[in-house]
C-alpha cells in the first residue's frame, strides 16, 4: 500500500510538471486529461472513492472537453483570419 501511494504521488508530480511545461495547449489538453485520470487513481488509493468519481467525470472528461472545444474554435478563427488576409492580398 505504502509503495503504491509513493508511486502514485511521484507520478502525480511528474505528470503535473509535464503538463505545465508543455507549451502547446492542444497537447496540454490531452495531458490534463491524463493528469485527471492519475489524480482519480490517487484518490482511489487514498480511500476517497467519492472524490475519485468526481475527478474522473470532471478532470478527465468535462474539463479536457471544454478545453478542446475552445481550442477548436480558436484554431478555426485563426484559419479564418489567415484566409481573409490572403484574400485581401490576392
Amino acid at each position, binding site marked *: 500500500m505504502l509503495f503504491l501511494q509513493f508511486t502514485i504521488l511521484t507520478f*502525480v508530480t511528474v505528470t*503535473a510538471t509535464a503538463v505545465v511545461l508543455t507549451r502547446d495547449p492542444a497537447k496540454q489538453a490531452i495531458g490534463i486529461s491524463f*493528469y485527471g485520470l492519475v489524480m482519480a487513481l490517487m484518490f482511489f488509493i487514498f480511500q*476517497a*472513492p*467519492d*472524490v475519485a468519481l468526481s475527478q474522473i467525470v470532471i478532470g478527465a472528461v468535462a*474539463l479536457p472537453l*471544454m478545453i478542446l472545444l475552445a481550442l477548436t*474554435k480558436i484554431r478555426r478563427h485563426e484559419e479564418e483570419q489567415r484566409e481573409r488576409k490572403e484574400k485581401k492580398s490576392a
Partner: protein
Amino acid sequence: MSFFPYAVAAWLFIIGLYGIVTSRNFVHLVICLAVLQSSTYVLLLSIGYRVGGTAPVFAAVPVGTLAVDPVVQALMLTDIVVEATVVALLLALALQLHKHANTLDPDKLKALEG
C-alpha cells in the same frame, strides 16, 4: 512517507504558479491554474488520510471501522466543482479575447498598460 504528500502539494502550487507566470497563451495559463488547484486536492487528501483506514462508506464494513476523514472529502468535492466552473469561465473569456484581439499571448496585449 509521513511528509512526502505535503511536499507534493507544495510543489504543485509552485509549478502551477510558474506555469502562469511564464505562460504565453491564456489557454495554457488556465490549464496551469487547474494544476495549481490540484495542489489543494493533494493537501486536503493527505490531511484527512489515516493509515489503515477504509473509505468513509459503511455499506460493506460496520460502523466503527477505522475510516479516513469524510469532511476533507466533502470539501474536495466542492473544490472540484469550483475548478470546473472557474476553468469554464476563464476559457470563455479567453475565447472572446481571441475573437477580438486575434491573440492569446499576454505579451502582445498592451491595452491595459499604466
